[in-house]
């Protein structure tokens, strides 16, 4: 790499694009902590550079024939070779572009959202850190590098969730997110090591090539795939590690938009795309993945149906949509997953940013409170929310409809119809929960006094901030509408990936789009009946059965279960026992030994009681015994 990296324009672009945020991070942390404006400028500039380079790379390699790979030595130890480098192929280029675009928009948005926050500089530094690690993750040529940056995005996620560290719950949520993803990461690390053991290196292209089947016994391959899938579960908040994501909403809204919906949590799905052929080699792994994706999708949908917190609703929908992507991928549809990832990134970022505008304006997350305070008067964000929710629900002309369609087609191609049925159920539920907050906010039972002052932000500064925030919304809304019509070019673009791979084509069922749109519309209609129509009681059908509602609201008691395990089994169980062991058994025995030594000394001293006659007696006895010894 060192020989000609400066001459190779592609590589140079990639390096500049990925490392500019890191430089920004270092500069902000070291020099401009106390100059928020400079920090923001630097950060935005680096995001722009990244965006430009991503676009240049994407444009320059639209017709990429075979993957471009650049590696250089990072660490060599014994027979472990860890390179650092860049792998440019359709999958990574698409993801890179998505990351760069959303990252740029969110940073721009944050100028308004975070204005006046005491941690303004820190915020932008951490955002840059995230952007750097996410981009490096995207273009990793080896699983090692991917793992390293995988951890680093987790780290930046930890810091950003706990950004308002004075709120105790924020810190808790960050910790929870880090530890739960760490659990998945450990599994993934083990899977990576397993591959390393058999393959000898971790080059992604080699892992994806068919020769791995010859190098790894099938059960090992399945095990490795499952372990790596564990990492995906952690990062993409799939069942059973899904509870950290709703809590992660403690972070600022732009962070939720960037990290916890569109990019970082999608890294799990991205990893699946990255190792797509590898996973397909093991049918057990894909089946497990399919099951987990399905369970997560349905579970999160039920949770979203009863939540009152707008950000949590979108968080649950993120889990559910990620599950949906994994279903598509496990069904053998690389394009299905990648396309839905892209559209999802756009509309989910849109939804979160809109929610951020509401929260920034009214200072509450509760949808009923928001409705009562009059969100419907904020026309642009409300409209954007409706567009985003429409895409989420999969209403026809919006991008979500098309991407879901592709996945459903793939699922329909599977021999077992249960997946398709589950997915269709998911579509219905999604439509229901996506429009529930919309209708609640659109048709509040009683509006506050009309023309309340908070309808339109006042003051030039306030208005400026508002405009800064609304700008990215409009762009994302446009993307949400437009992306659906880019299906064919994207499909052609991604066709260059994994050319050797033959997957069963999705069945072309003519009736599927109609059924889907019917279900989605039905879901929306049900919502309208319950929440939207004049005189509606604004309680969902689930709320009618308190037991189930409570069950859903408590996240199926998963959180309680984990908490109980952690508290009782680990903290008060094993740890306490071991700590007791330390103080009582180990320390105790050692203290006992030293006490025993002293005691023995005291006892020995008893013989030498200090009286001269005893000494004399001892001498005499010793002499006698010696004489016995000598003479006999």
């Amino acid at each position, binding site marked *: 790499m060192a020989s000609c990296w400066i001459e190779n324009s592609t590589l140079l672009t990639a390096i500049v694009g990925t490392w500019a945020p890191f430089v920004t991070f270092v500069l902000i942390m070291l020099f401009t902590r106390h100059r928020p404006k400079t920090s923001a400028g630097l950060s935005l500039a680096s995001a722009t550079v990244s965006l430009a380079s991503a676009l240049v790379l994407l444009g320059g390699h639209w017709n990429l024939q075979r993957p471009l790979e650049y590696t250089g030595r990072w660490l060599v130890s014994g027979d472990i070779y860890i390179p650092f480098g860049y792998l440019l192929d359709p999958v990574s280029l698409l993801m890179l572009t998505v990351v760069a675009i959303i990252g740029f928009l969110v940073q721009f948005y944050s100028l308004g959202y975070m204005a006046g926050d005491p941690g303004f500089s820190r915020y932008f530094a951490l955002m840059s850190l995230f952007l750097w690690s996410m981009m490096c993750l995207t273009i990793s040529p080896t699983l090692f590098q991917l793992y390293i940056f995988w951890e680093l995005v987790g780290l930046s996620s930890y810091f950003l969730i706990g950004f308002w560290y004075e709120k105790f719950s924020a810190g808790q949520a960050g910790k929870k997110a880090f530890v739960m993803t760490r659990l998945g990461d450990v599994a993934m690390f083990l899977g990576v090591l397993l591959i390393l053991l058999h393959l000898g290196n971790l080059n992604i292209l080699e892992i994806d090539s068919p020769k791995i089947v010859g190098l790894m016994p099938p059960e090992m391959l399945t095990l490795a795939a499952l372990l790596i899938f564990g990492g995906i579960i952690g990062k993409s908040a799939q069942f059973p590690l899904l509870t950290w994501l709703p809590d992660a909403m403690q972070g600022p809204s732009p962070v939720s938009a960037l990290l916890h919906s569109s990019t970082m949590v999608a890294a799990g799905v991205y990893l699946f795309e990255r190792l797509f052929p590898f996973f397909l080699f093991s049918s057990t792994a894909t089946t497990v993945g399919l099951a987990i994706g399905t369970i997560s999708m349905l579970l999160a949908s039920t949770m979203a149906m009863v939540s009152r917190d707008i950000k949590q609703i979108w968080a649950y929908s993120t889990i559910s949509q990620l599950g949906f992507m994994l279903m598509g991928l496990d069904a053998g549809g690389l394009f299905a997953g990648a396309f839905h990832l892209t559209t999802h990134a756009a509309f989910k970022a849109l939804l979160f940013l809109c929610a951020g505008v509401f929260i920034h304006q009214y200072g509450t997350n509760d949808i009923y409170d928001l409705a009562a305070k009059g969100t419907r008067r904020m026309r642009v964000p409300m409209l954007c929310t409706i567009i985003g929710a429409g895409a989420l629900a999969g209403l026809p002309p919006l991008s979500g409809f098309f991407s879901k369609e592709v996945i459903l087609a793939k699922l329909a191609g599977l021999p077992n119809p249960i997946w398709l049925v589950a997915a269709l159920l998911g579509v219905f539920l999604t439509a229901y929960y996506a429009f529930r907050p919309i209708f609640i906010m659109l048709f509040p039972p009683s509006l506050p006094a009309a023309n309340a002052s908070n309808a339109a932000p006042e003051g030039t500064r306030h208005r400026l901030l508002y405009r800064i925030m609304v700008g990215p919304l409009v762009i994302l809304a446009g993307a949400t509408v437009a992306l659906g019509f880019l299906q064919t070019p994207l499909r052609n673009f991604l066709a260059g990936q994994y050319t050797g791979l033959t997957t069963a084509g999705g069945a072309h069922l003519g009736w599927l789009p109609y059924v889907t749109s019917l279900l989605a519309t039905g879901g929306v209609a049900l919502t309208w009946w319950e929440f939207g129509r004049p005189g509606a009681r604004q309680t969902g059908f689930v709320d009618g059965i308190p037991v189930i509602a409570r069950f859903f609201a408590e996240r199926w008691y998963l959180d309680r279960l984990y908490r109980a395990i952690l508290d009782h089994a680990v903290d008060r169980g094993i740890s306490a026992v071991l700590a007791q062991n330390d103080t009582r058994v180990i320390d105790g025995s050692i203290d006992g030994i030293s006490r025993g030594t002293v005691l023995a000394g005291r006892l020995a001293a008893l013989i030498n009681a200090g009286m001269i006659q005893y000494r004399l007696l001892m001498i005499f*006895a010793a002499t*006698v015994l010696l004489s016995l010894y000598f*003479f006999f």
Partner: protein
Amino acid sequence: MTLHGLIFYLLASVILASTGMAITRRNLVHAVLYLVFSFIGSALLFCLFGAPFLALLQVIIYAGAIMVVFLFIVMMVKPDLSEGTVLPLRQLLPMVLFGFMYAVVGVLVAVTDPAGRAVLETAVAKPTEFGHYVFARHYLAVEIISLILLIGLMGALHLGREKVPKEPEEPS
């Protein structure tokens, strides 16, 4: 049994008996007096073993000087004569145990040692010869002994000074 033999056994029984009496007396004056008998008996035994000079020394130094010093001390310290049991059990019992072992070992050695079976002949070392012998062969030892005596003298003088330390009395 020869006459000499008879004398030996007689003396031996006197020595042992008077020593036994000496160590069991509660009254120290009695003990010292019994011991004087014992020492005189051993002086006679020395004579029997052909060392008249040493027998004299024994009488003069041991029975005469040392025992008198003991008597003086006994008078000086006025010991409490009601010292309880003369031979307390907790000291006597281990003593008897080891003493018995000692006796067994001693008798066995005396019996089995072939050198012990040789019968002693009478002979006399005249004081003149003895003196010659000592000063010709062991003058260094004599000097050393004199030094030791000197040191003993100094030590006794030092310890016997009237000055009593001013520290508080040790708890007794």
